[in-house]
């Protein structure tokens, strides 16, 4: 099959070889998550939701108590693929992708700022049309930013392939399953460093360099799009924002039921122990919080709660 038209140079879906599919990012799609995002790359559509930082749920999983524990689960919806097949949960492919996404996001999350806490990233594929792991990473970046998780950089991911002697950017499902090479790259955008790199099928060294270069360019384009998205939604990596859900949810109860409920929520859900040196940055919205820098224990007693106004 001809994946690149020899006359026009167009691909099966009408794109040029180095053309990316339409991108769409939307934050706050899951109301009850601490951060969430929908990311579309053409027909590939994924949702990412972030819960945390919160208390470590299963102490056995905590490897290093000086850093936040990052967890990730990748799941495909039953209807996400063309042929509907019920697959068992946690198959080998999903397990590997979960691992890859987790380690990629870990590379950018400032885990040392959130000791003894846990961040859960859940990615759900709604529609799979090639490049799901890239879309998941991009969605996870947006969701983490939405949750106000401190990150050292934006991570973006894009794939590229090599078919009909042409490097192709952002493969769709048809091109992906053509049996050619597929290179998925994840970069830390500002630092211009590669954190994720996966490829299969054989490629000569210099061709590989070209294909990887193309994928990196794709990542950069996605990074600028994601930055745009973040600007529109007033998200910032450097400023540690308090996730809006955590504040507004208990806020209702605060006005209704007294401040005890509020204290409880804050103390349990936000173990921002590394951040207590700068209490003023923690102030946001109509109700502010002042946490005493001395209380470094994550307890749900209101003892380390100095005052609200």
């Amino acid at each position, binding site marked *: 099959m001809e994946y690149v038209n020899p006359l026009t140079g167009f691909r099966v879906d009408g794109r040029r070889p180095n053309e990316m599919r339409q991108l769409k990012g939307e934050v706050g799609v899951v109301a009850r998550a601490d951060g969430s995002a929908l990311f579309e790359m053409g027909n590939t559509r994924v949702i990412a939701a972030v819960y945390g930082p919160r208390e470590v749920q299963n102490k056995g*999983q905590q490897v290093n108590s000086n850093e936040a524990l990052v967890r990730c689960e990748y799941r495909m919806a039953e209807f996400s693929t063309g042929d509907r097949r019920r697959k068992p949960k946690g198959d080998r492919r999903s*397990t590997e992708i979960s691992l890859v996404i987790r380690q990629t996001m870990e590379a950018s999350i400032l885990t040392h700022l959130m000791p003894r806490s846990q961040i859960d990233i859940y990615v759900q594929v709604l529609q799979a049309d090639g490049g799901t792991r890239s879309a998941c990473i991009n969605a996870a970046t947006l969701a983490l930013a939405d949750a106000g998780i401190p990150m050292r950089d934006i991570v973006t991911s894009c794939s590229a392939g090599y078919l009909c002697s042409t490097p192709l950017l952002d493969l769709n499902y048809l091109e992906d399953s053509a049996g050619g090479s597929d*290179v998925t790259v994840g970069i830390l955008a500002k630092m211009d*460093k*590669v*954190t994720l790199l996966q490829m299969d099928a054989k*490629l000569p*060294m210099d061709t*590989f360099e070209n294909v*990887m270069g193309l994928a990196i360019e794709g990542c950069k384009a996605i990074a600028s799009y994601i930055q745009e998205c973040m600007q529109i939604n007033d998200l910032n990596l450097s400023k540690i924002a308090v996730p809006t859900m955590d504040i507004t949810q208990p806020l209702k109860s605060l006005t209704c039921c007294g401040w005890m409920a509020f204290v409880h929520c804050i103390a349990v859900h936000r173990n921002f122990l590394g951040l207590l040196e700068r209490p003023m940055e923690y102030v946001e919205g109509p109700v502010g919080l002042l946490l005493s820098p001395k209380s470094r224990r994550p307890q749900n007693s209101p003892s380390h709660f100095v005052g609200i106004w």
Partner: protein
Amino acid sequence: MAMEHLRWRPTVNERDFIERALQSDLRVDGRHSFDFRKLKITFGREDGSSEVQLGETHVMGYVTAQLVQPYRDRPNEGTLAIFTEFSPMADPAFEPGRPGESAIELGRVIDRGLRESRAVDMESLCVVAGKHVWSVRVDLHILDNGGNLIDAANIAALAALSTFRRPECTVGGDDGQQVTVHDPEVRDPLPLTIHHMPIAVTFAYFGEGNIVVDPTYKEEAVMGGRMTATVNSNGDVCAIQKAGGEGVMSSVIMQCLRIALVKAADITSKIKKAVDSYTTEKALKKVKRLPTSVPQKISVTDVIMEDKGDGELEKQTVDVQQISKDPPTIVKVSSHEDAQPMTESSNAEVNTSSAVAAGESDESQEIGSPKSLKDAIKPKHKRKKKSDKS
């Protein structure tokens, strides 16, 4: 994953020591940054079994094959599957039973390197298109985890595949669909066609730009990121796995790939040398025709894997008998049968059965003289398998 907390974790001092040493280009075991540890490849008594020692890392590879129906979308190709077995004996962090994350990742990285780069010729494994193809199964047993499992397991897989011999079979009968599997005694079994050797080379990245190849267990516990590049000596990149972690410049990645090329050429020649000396030895044995004393190269692991004395006894007698008749034939009644009853036993049966016309029905193969209790219970397995497939 649940056993993650059992993984060895370096103390602050150990971590500091390893990192500080790397700053001055020193590794804790005295190697240079881009040196591999000592590689030792040995082979078991049977074709298709290998044992690789990379420093303290110890992996056993074991290849078997059986006739199966091909996948519908690839009717004229055989199949290759990689299975990994992480024993808690090798590392307390390995959970017994369900494969953990790292086991799955390892399996998939090796699978990508070998299968998707089409290192093993699959078309030549086809017997009757759409009906019978050889399904090659590579079992990788991690016996000791001293770091860099992927590279060691990859070498073990390649070495085992290189020495594997499958029984020859011919197609005949009235409808041209009858498959005859020839007894290894009658016709020499055939090796696999291996187009190229994809060698996995793992790099460990540490903060401040330090890179080493072939990280040890301790270095793995300290490193910030890892990249496994699977390359062959022709200069092709077959697979890469860098699953997140420490970011590196793309120029550094290309540099690593070039280093990997050199390492791959080196390892390829080591594997080839080991395989050559093994085959020569086998050929010599054939000439000598030693009836009684069977020259064996029994590896320690072979003994470990055998769990019941009676099975071993039976196996050895079978071996002796047949070798005395015709030295090069290798009977694959493996101790693995106990570990992997279903596939292994049906596989063993293909190999041991004498030349019986095995038409479209696999049952006809089962007629092949039952030799033991294991053989006797085979039909049940067989049926089970069939119903699974349908």
